[in-house]
């Protein structure tokens, strides 16, 4: 048997080394799984992780997939720093899409430049309000935010299904569960004309850098970090824990809402019953892989976005199931958490109970 003993210090080197180690381990384990399945491991890993980058439109697809992951990963990193465990960004993303989409549907003929900002603000508001339900339950009733935010994510999905199959269903859509198309004005401008490259791909890194600055250089950022690392010290210093819960839920929910509204206006142009392949949950892996540091979120978001593209590439080029996206993401998180444990603790072997007797 063995036990885990605190090391008493955190290696600066390994705290950034562990995501890279985890990635290498994941590639090795995935390669072993592929080999076990009778596939050439190197070619499969290459197809999954490298080839999408060189495919036509590969970088554009990567940016589109990474934008929501980075936006949500940044929000989560702030919340997690403060020990506020928002697991329900998927739901806040959905509410952002619903509020933003609702605003777009309410303004079908408006052509003012102000429409798109209004749609974005509606989306941010939707995600934020939904996250604040969690903050309220936590501060008023001490309800565990892990449970409440996760459960609200499922409610959000059913709310979306209700709206697009009920009151918001496109009357001209032959009964299909989808809303009318948004106007071009509400869909917002494009980075490159006539593509899906919406401005979320610019907003995501800009917001990440802004958050990095706030966390590192402002007193609010300092409060968040102290609260996460030493809650008692934070209380002695007069930082209000409740205020930070409200603020970090508002920020992570608002950014998830922004991701949701960018996604539906930027790539879909309407609401349907499926608006996310699980971005909100993947963003949790992004946050940890990026070391809860908004600057680290950018490469982490790009890597996880790559796993989505890799799933398609493996299916098309190798005839494999795209379930390998989920498998890869799962192994990556597992290796990362495992490596993180070993940064904080050392393994101490001891004799088994049987030997002692």
């Amino acid at each position, binding site marked *: 048997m063995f036990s885990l003993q605190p090391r008493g210090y955190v290696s600066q080197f390994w705290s950034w080394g562990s995501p890279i180690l985890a990635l290498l381990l994941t590639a090795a384990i995935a390669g072993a799984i592929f080999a076990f399945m009778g596939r050439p491991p190197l070619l499969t890993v290459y197809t999954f992780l490298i080839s999408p980058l060189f*495919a*036509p*439109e590969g970088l554009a*697809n990567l940016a589109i997939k990474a934008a929501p992951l980075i936006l949500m990963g940044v929000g989560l990193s702030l919340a997690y720093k403060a020990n506020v465990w928002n697991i329900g960004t998927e739901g806040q993303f959905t509410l952002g899409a619903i509020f933003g989409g609702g605003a777009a549907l309410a303004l079908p003929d408006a052509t003012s430049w102000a429409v798109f900002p209004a749609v974005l603000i509606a989306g941010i508001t939707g995600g934020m309000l939904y996250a604040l339900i969690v903050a309220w339950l936590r501060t008023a009733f001490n309800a565990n935010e892990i449970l409440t935010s996760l459960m609200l994510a499922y409610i959000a999905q059913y709310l979306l*299904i209700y709206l697009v*199959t*009920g009151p918001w*269903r496109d009357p001209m859509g*032959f*009964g*299909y*569960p989808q809303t009318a198309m948004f106007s071009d004005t509400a869909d917002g401008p494009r980075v490159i004309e006539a593509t*899906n490259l919406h401005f979320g791909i610019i907003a995501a890194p800009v917001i990440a850098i802004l958050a990095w600055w706030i966390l590192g250089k402002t007193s609010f950022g300092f409060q968040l970090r102290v609260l996460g690392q030493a809650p008692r010290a934070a209380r002695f210093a007069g930082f209000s824990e409740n205020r930070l819960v409200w603020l970090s839920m508002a920020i992570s929910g608002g950014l998830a809402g922004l991701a949701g509204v960018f996604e539906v206006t930027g*790539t*879909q142009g309407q609401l*349907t*019953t*499926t*608006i996310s*392949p699980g971005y909100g949950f993947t963003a949790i892996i992004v946050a940890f892989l990026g070391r809860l540091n908004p600057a680290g979120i950018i490469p982490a978001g790009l890597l996880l976005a790559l796993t989505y593209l890799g799933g*398609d*590439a493996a*299916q*098309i*080029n190798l*005839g494999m*199931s*795209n*379930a390998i996206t989920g498998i890869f993401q799962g192994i990556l998180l597992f290796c990362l958490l495992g490596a993180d444990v070993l940064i904080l603790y050392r393994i101490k072997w001891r004799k088994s109970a049987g030997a002692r007797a």
Partner: protein
Amino acid sequence: MQRRSFGQMIGAGAAISALPSLARQAQAADPLKVGFIYLGPVGDFGWTYQHDGARKEAVAKYGDAIKTTIVENVPEGPDSEKVIADLANSGHKLIFTTSFGYMNYTLNVAKRFPGVFFEHATGYKRAANVSTYNIRFYQARYVQGVIAGKLSKSGVAGYVGSIPVPEVVQGMNAFLLGMQSINPKATLKFIMVNSWYDPPKEADATKALIDQGCDIITQHTDSPAPLQAAASRGIKGFGQSTDMAKFADTTQLTASVDLWGPYYIKRIGDVLAGTWKSTDTWGGFDSGLLGMSPFTNMPADVAALAASTEADIKSGKNKVFVGPLVDQAGASKLAAGAVMDDGALSGMQWLVQGIQGKLG
């Protein structure tokens, strides 16, 4: 005709006739790459399974002259546009997108790849390089309705609906028209589960319909769950897309069976021969795209009536949607003796008198 026997026939036919010339051709040139976009996993039954079975028939027919690629579990959203474009980018010259929700994304990609041919199932938008194809599923519904009219004691049938698109509305109307051709007082209740595949919801809907007095069940969803739920209550039902007898051998009366094989073989052949054109195909019993699995668990006279009804529809003697047709509110929708045209049929969003409940 059953799917399997059909597949064997195609396989045997291919072995005798078509292959020698094609095999030579394949050695000379690169194989034609054909892509398929699937909504679900292939699995063992249902919509995607039938498409994949048809793909295999085409592979058996053309051998090395073609190389097929499937992409499964593709959601009907912007991801589908990316996957369709991926196929076009990787040298696929013919791409089948096999669910309605891929319609706009298929057209978007088709615009960017004028040299690639696209085939979109069940949609209504076409382009110079985009064809559409569909099956007249309602013909099989009418035959099911006739059987239900004979077997139902309460005169109330239950319809486990998916999404109220015209295809499903046609199915409900055709089912009740068939049932009313035997029992003019017959009525139909329905529940939409708002999904094509959701076994727990399908089973719940089935039980709710039975609790409301329905004594025969049909389904427009993909899983055997309604049949199994009906079996647990001792009620008979109809399979969907695939012969589902192996899941409910004492419950399934018959199943409507999707047979995309002849279409896939023809369209791939057209591309190989360089004669592909954008077309709109809507085939029923007569085209070989729609079949019914054996009529079982019913008296011989009912099975004979069902078979003759199928034959009448196949020969064109019975056009299914023939006036007088009256909607739920009692308004006339089609004059006596008139036959509904395909335009009105393909946009159908009203229910015939005797169906209880409202669309969405």
